[in-house]
């Protein structure tokens, strides 16, 4: 295993950035976010970023194509594919798991080539957690926050950074960096995670009963009652992947772009003749059943949540997947 002195972390970032574009979690624009590294940019002290690492593979807005229209004729120019290799440093185990979930949607045939290209060009460097937040519950989803995946896994201990390559891409990057020392993987301390208040959530129950039992639960009425439909949960969620496709017309060119959307919004399923999810109850139910039942049904039991706790922190009315899962489970006994 390779090591590096944490007091010279800047030099490591400079060495990586000398080869590829580097993103690190840094305090930017009011909250920690994955930010392009430039000399002087320091890593955030926060455990995790406000928005998840999905932004780097599935940006909030991206152009798909441009159309030139002249009289009755149309010509199409597809947007350029991302072609530069880049490195994301400091991805936590929860966000790293979210890539698997996003992959199962975007890389399913026919693959989304925009997402696919970003995934292929990225080298993901994860960072093990040592001090979780009270809102963390990744361990309930079978994630080990002290053994994150990615192309390279990192641990910070006793003033040093320890790096372990997990893939050929990770090995290539480590091999290209000069002056890395050799060391042993540091001791980890799992006991801190055993004390987390949400460590014992059970998500397996949602696969054990028919879909309609969950759908028809009388609890949706009360659970959804205070939901404002603001969509904050979907925007900070590392696994929310729903998108809209829209056109912007200006200067004789129409740009077709893709942007994040939210099933919590009233126009999400609105068609010319109306919507099949007319109230917040149906939209709220869609969001949670998608993560707890529908996605797992379609992807070998893979729950559409990674326990990062962002929605617990951000929801203005403190409603979240933990409360919903607990209520449904207890209501079903």
């Amino acid at each position: 295993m390779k090591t590096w002195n944490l007091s010279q972390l800047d030099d490591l970032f400079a060495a990586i950035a000398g080869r590829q574009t580097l993103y690190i979690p840094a305090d930017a624009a009011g909250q920690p976010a994955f930010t392009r590294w430039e000399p002087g940019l320091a890593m955030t002290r926060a455990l995790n970023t406000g928005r998840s690492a999905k932004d780097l593979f599935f940006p909030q807005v991206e152009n798909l194509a441009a159309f030139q229209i002249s009289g009755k004729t149309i010509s199409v120019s597809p947007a350029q594919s991302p072609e530069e290799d880049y490195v994301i440093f400091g991805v936590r185990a929860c966000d790293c798991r979210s890539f698997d979930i996003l992959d199962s949607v975007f890389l399913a045939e026919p693959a989304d080539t925009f997402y696919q290209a970003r995934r292929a060009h990225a080298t993901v460097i994860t960072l093990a957690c040592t001090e979780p937040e009270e809102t963390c519950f990744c361990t309930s989803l079978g994630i080990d926050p002290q053994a994150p995946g990615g192309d390279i896994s990192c641990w910070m201990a006793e003033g040093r950074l320890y790096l372990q390559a997990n893939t050929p891409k990770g090995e290539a990057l480590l091999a290209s960096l000069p002056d890395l020392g050799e060391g042993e993987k540091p001791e980890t301390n799992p006991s801190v995670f055993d004390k987390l208040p949400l460590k014992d959530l059970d998500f397996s129950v949602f696969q054990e009963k028919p879909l309609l039992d969950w759908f028809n639960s009388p609890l949706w009425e009360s659970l959804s009652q205070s939901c404002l439909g603001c969509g904050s949960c979907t925007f900070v969620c590392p696994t929310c992947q729903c998108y809209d496709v829209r056109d912007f017309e200006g200067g004789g060119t129409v740009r077709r772009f893709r942007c994040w959307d939210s099933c919590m919004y009233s126009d999400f399923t609105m068609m010319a003749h109306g919507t099949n999810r007319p109230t917040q109850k149906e939209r709220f139910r869609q969001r949670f059943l998608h993560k707890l039942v529908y996605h797992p049904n379609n992807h070998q039991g893979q729950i559409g949540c990674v326990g990062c706790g962002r929605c617990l922190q951000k929801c203005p009315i403190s409603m979240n997947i933990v409360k919903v899962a607990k209520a449904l489970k207890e209501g079903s006994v």
Partner: protein
Amino acid sequence: MNMRQDPLIPMVAQVTDIRTDTPDVKTFRVVGLDGKKPFSHIPGQCAMLSMPGVGEALFSITSSPTNEDYMEFSIKKCGCVTNWLHAIEPGQQITLRGPYGNGFPVDTDFAGKDLLFIAGGIGLAPLRSVINYVRHYRQRYGTVDIVYGARSKEDLVDYQEILEQWCREEGVNVHLTIDNPQPDWDGHVGFVPNYVKELGFDTGKTVVMCGPPIMIKFTLAGLEELGFQRDQVYTTFELKMKCALGKCGRCNIGDQYVCKDGPVFRLDQMTRLPDEY
């Protein structure tokens, strides 16, 4: 030119002919820029049709795959994209991508069966593809019954084709109905679900149904009264879509995406799913 192949990037196609079917339905004939049919499809499959700057929406392909020359879409004027389409003239280019969805099992489950088609209003559009496919390969199927209803005689889509071709074909029985009596109509008057019950079909038939959700629900109840099982009945759904690839996340009924798992479902497959459509 960048020849990027992403499933969201459409091809350019051309509308070569527009037929006015009813006061609010037109049928658009579409070919690629090379003058040929844009792509092949299975009856019941759909395509994303768009005018950049106006929007993109999913429509069922109403022409049969056996038509080698062009594709047709019967489209009701009811929203943003469809209003635009109803205002265009032949020669207009549009964008197109597809085909999407599973289509009807015309070469498997339907083979050798007596078929009963039930359609309401613009719901004939996806069934026309199947009906003309079945007529083309007539010997592969048993008897064909078509029950089709609309608000008025003027609202019957493909009326000329029905009269001049379907009604004259041996082994094809057409049963038309309209909601209210009108002077120039001597056919049946009444709603589709009741008419189906009145006609009282043999329960050995395979049913292919499309229409407004309310028609589907009442007709299914009537069919069950007659002794039909849900696994004999096929229908096709439509919900809002942006990608038609199972990724944008909005056309699901429970864990099934209408765009890729449907739009065709056998009704017994819907029993475990919510009534959210």
